[in-house]
């Protein structure tokens, strides 16, 4: 896909319009899509693809994907949400993802940032330091 600066700028603006109090909401996204359909941009499909791409990024920034090999209590999940909301200064929703390769502990991903407190990660770092 060719990167057009104008389209990128438009897609980013659309993402901003999709936010309500700094959080992307389904209702706002629906409104933005309806508006886009009305306007019928010359590169409608490209704009949509770019919008989807930046929307994914924005959602990733608002979501803490908690990978863990076992189950996690609701309280723990809540505590994670509170902690990361405080760190990033915006509301962060926690989502659980099961990953048995971690052996034990948790790994949390918020956007590009990865917080690793898993045993597998610990062992990997140990191996790197020893070799």
């Amino acid at each position: 896909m060719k990167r057009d600066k104008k389209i990128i700028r438009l897609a980013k603006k659309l993402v901003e319009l999709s936010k309500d109090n700094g959080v992307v909401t389904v209702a706002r996204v629906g409104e933005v899509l309806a508006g886009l359909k009305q306007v019928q941009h010359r590169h409608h499909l490209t704009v949509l693809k770019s919008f989807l791409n930046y929307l994914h990024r924005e959602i990733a920034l608002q979501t803490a994907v908690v990978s863990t090999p076992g189950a996690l209590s609701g309280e723990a999940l809540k505590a994670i949400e509170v902690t990361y909301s405080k760190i990033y200064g915006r509301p962060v929703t926690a989502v659980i993802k099961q990953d048995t390769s971690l052996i034990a502990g948790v790994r949390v991903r918020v956007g590009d940032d990865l917080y690793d407190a898993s045993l597998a990660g610990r062992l990997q770092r140990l191996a790197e330091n020893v070799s």
Partner: protein
Amino acid sequence: MSSIVEQIENEIASFQASAVKSNTGKIVSIADGVAKLEGLSGAMYNEMIDFGQGVYGIALNLEEDEVGCVILGDYSKLKEGDEATTTGKLLSVPVGMGLLGRVVDAIGNPIDGKGPINSTETYPVDQIAPGIIPRKSVDQPMQTGIMSIDSMIPIGRGQRELIIGDRSTGKTTIAIDTIINQAKINNQHRNEDGTFPEGFRPVYSIYVAIGQKNSNIARTIAVLEKAGAMEYTIIVSASAGDNPANQYIAPFAGASMGEFFMNNGMDALIVYDDLSKQAVAYRQISLILKRPSGREAYPGDVFYLHSRLLERSARVNEDNGNGSLTALPIIETQAGDVAAYIPTNVISITDGQVFLETDLFNQGIRPAVSVGLSVSRVGSAAQIKAIKKVAGKVKLQLAQFRELAAFAQFGSDLDAKTKAQLGRGARVVELFKQKAFNPIPVEVQSSLIYAVQNGYFDAIEVAKIVEATSSLRDFLETRGAKVMDTIRTEKAISDATEAALKTSLAEWVAGFSA
């Protein structure tokens, strides 16, 4: 084995259950050693990026949504969608005395099969050059062992002297000769226990091979080993087969290794062979990164690429260890065009240049140093008195000789003075012919030039001067050893030494003529 157990025990002792934060990104595209990554929002300029599987890269382009990264090493295993992590570190290479005698790649990994490098210290490859305050003027000579250079274009410790010329004109040979000469001087002064006497400053060498054939690098190593110079030398190799990122980074890695010696009060010599190929590698990286191109398609910052590298060579003052890093960058010209982009850039950055001419090389004048176009801007301050005394007028004499020789072609009737000038000039040209990898000690150089200047060669046919020079050199190194020792230690030709030298020369003339 016990050290590994110890390391594991230390790790367990320092175990903390806290989370480790890293910043990640995904490869969007990868081609020709350059990867574009999505994410990595926390990446810093020039930061090392970990691609996993032992592959690292350097973040060179930080854009709004993407990070452009050059990959060091084998990138064939990487694919679109692979994850990369920031490391929070700048690219660093091992430095220290343990590197001497070793051949390493652009990031300091050994490639000579002699096991791991014995080094505990690392330096970042891209460091800021010493400022104005820690610097000192060049005042100590860096003897190349090449008579034409040491007498007419002297190089000082901490100087940057460009070696420039077309292909196959002997550029590398001059650099190798200089490295061999440093090793010879070091060995001459070394005590039996391997230490050096107080007051003597050994010179360690770093040879950075950029974009060269592996066979050429192997030949260079063989020459250095044969001459016993490898034990004082580090070879950094980024051959033509290496990816452009390695060719771009190799000179910086070499400079870091050299800076270790300078920062620790020692003297080092670094040869960049050659910077034209580094510029080409940098151009390739820049074009793939879609940076705007300028003259000859080089990016706008190609001047800064070379200036920031060569500024790292310096002579620092006593307060900063009194060390030095001398640079001999090499530039290959195309058809003698010194006005091309990269040659003019590097000429303006360096403190002088040794220009080698194809015509002279083909005429058999080797090293093919063009006296008219070569210059050393600061080195004369570092020349020892012995050489200064005898070689002060050589450059002028040679220039006059070339002018007279050009005029003499048109007429046969010449006065005695002109004939004598032509004869002397022709003999000096012959005197400066020197075999490759055969550096001449400075005391012998000064005596040989003294002999020509004072007419000891006048009776010898021009065609026999090379033979005579070789004979006189042997004579001076054997029967004249005492005089040579005096010149070496005194670094000057006193009246008494001059008298002794005259006697030796007269003895040699009698023997040679007979």
